């Protein structure tokens, strides 16, 4: 960070993007009833963290960390980038498992709207729902 950094907005815009994405993602996870939308929110939330790590590791005017023989080269820190490679894999696995579960939930309940499913749970006697098309599932 240069000494003369009077503008919060222009010098830290990547961190602002991180904060916006983080809040947006978390808000979707908390507020949406649609189970797929929740997973989308979760992915956005995780992506904001990836961006945060990458921003931390990037040096201004730094290059890729490859020894070229030129002295006084400024390198970016590769470690956070590698960590995020791992985190991306974990994120993909989480999303995949989540989507697979949503498929099974749709097969078992006939809906992927959390509020409708919760209403169904109260009525246990109901047969395995096969009413995906004949109810108000897509009214939202």
């Amino acid at each position, binding site marked *: 960070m240069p000494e003369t950094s009077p503008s919060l907005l222009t010098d830290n815009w990547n961190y602002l993007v991180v904060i916006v994405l983080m809040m947006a993602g*978390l808000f979707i*996870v908390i507020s949406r009833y649609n*189970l797929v939308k*929740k*997973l989308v929110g*979760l992915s956005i*939330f*995780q992506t904001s*963290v990836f961006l*945060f*790590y990458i921003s*931390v590791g990037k040096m201004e005017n730094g290059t890729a960390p490859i020894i070229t023989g030129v002295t006084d080269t400024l390198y970016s820190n590769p470690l*956070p980038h590698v*960590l995020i490679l*791992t*985190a991306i894999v*974990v994120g993909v*696995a*989480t999303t995949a*498992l*989540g989507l697979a*579960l*949503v498929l*099974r*939930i749709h097969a*078992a*309940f006939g809906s992927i709207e*959390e509020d409708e*499913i919760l209403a169904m*749970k109260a009525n246990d006697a109901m047969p*395995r729902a096969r009413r995906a098309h004949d109810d108000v599932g897509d009214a939202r």
Partner: protein
Amino acid sequence: MMGIYSIFNNLPALLVVVPLLLAPIAALLPVRRLAWLLTLVGTGISVVVAILLAGITATGLRITYFLGNWPPPWGIEFVVDQATSLTILVMSVLAFFATLFAYRAIEREIAEKDIGKAYAAWLLACGGLYGLVMTADAFNLFVFLEISALASVILIALGAGTDRRALIAAYNYLVIGAVGATFYVIGVGFIYAVTGTLNMSDLAARIPDVQSDSIIFVGFGFMVAGILVKAAVFPVHIWLPAAYSYAPSAVSALLAAIATKASIYVLARIIFTIFAGVPDVTALALEWVLIPLSLAGIFVGTIMAIYEADLKKMLAFSSIAQIGYITLGLGLATQAGIAAGFIHIANHALIKGGMFMAVGAIFLAVGSRVGVETMRGIGRKMPITSLAFLICGLSLIGLPLTAGFISKLYLVRAMLEVDSYVLVGMVLVSSALSVAYLWKIVEVMWVHPAAVDKLEIKEQPALYIPLWIIALANIWLGVAPSGLVSAANGAAGALLGSGG
């Protein structure tokens, strides 16, 4: 020294590698009996390794293992000290007996074609949790956290064979758990940005030198908040009751015994190892966050359990209360308090593992979800299972001569040491309250006559033998607790000594 211990130096790696290698084989095996046998061998090897590790570390030795032979600040390191080996020992023993129990339980509750995959997820969950406990790398910890979490989600979702609500429970656990894990990663990012290291002992050494207190504070907050979600500490416990109650019986027993314990251990590591150098930050968190939340969890969990009619849900709520006792012990931050926390980690694993097994056995015999009404007269119909359930239940309350009594005794003693009489009073009141929900079950089990229309109920040795071993362990640790107590004291010493 290297000569003698060179083989032992590879033990920590075995604990993670064996389950992870066996998991894909189990998934591919077409015969369910073989898949189960493979899982039993895998968990059995873990028990042997854990016993060896406990034996080595009992002398105060600290085993370190460098993954890929990269020395620590660069490579990932596994560290096993007394605290680690005690936790691993408890987890691996319980996982072994849960596997024994699983043979009959899983074949009844999970579709034949899924059984191999279920055991694969079972092994992955165990391996992930062992890695979680041993790793000394803050980011590697996140990876193990997610390995075990994803495997647990699969195991919980398999409960859909008997109750479709298991799918919702699994989904919620996945989403809430992923948010918790991501919080932890955010925290690690902050700390890494100011220290430039991920190794726990390195972090502990560098954190006191960091000028910016606020970044340490924020990072610490995010890390602890994330792990609290995984450890199901009140009020971020909401995923637990549904997850434990709709999962297959054997899975409930496994997860209740080992999953949250690993996260609680990680919580202790973060507070007492990584952030040992900034006691003002951790003291603030312990005094104003962890202790109040533990107390709230104890009371909310107990009261919810009293009003719950479904037995598995009741046990899950009671787990939240019991987790409260453990974190309360840790929150005292004294040698005696942490030792009490570790004693209760072991005892609660035995208590809840046993109780979930008993309820699972009753569920399999009766063939429907076990509510308080279902339990009517079960005491006479299934005397062997019921007696073991009663022993574990009395241990839960904390009756003398059971393991639970030792937990409460040391917890109260640790509180008296720091003169917190209010806490002592609250623990005693909550113990009395827990009698209420247990009595509710015991009454219908023995006092009420059985429903007449009930068919012949048979008890299976494959189900009650592991259950009884756990029940007898509850009594044994209540009568002769000295081994566990000295191990827990050693664990507390190792935790407070390292990094500080």
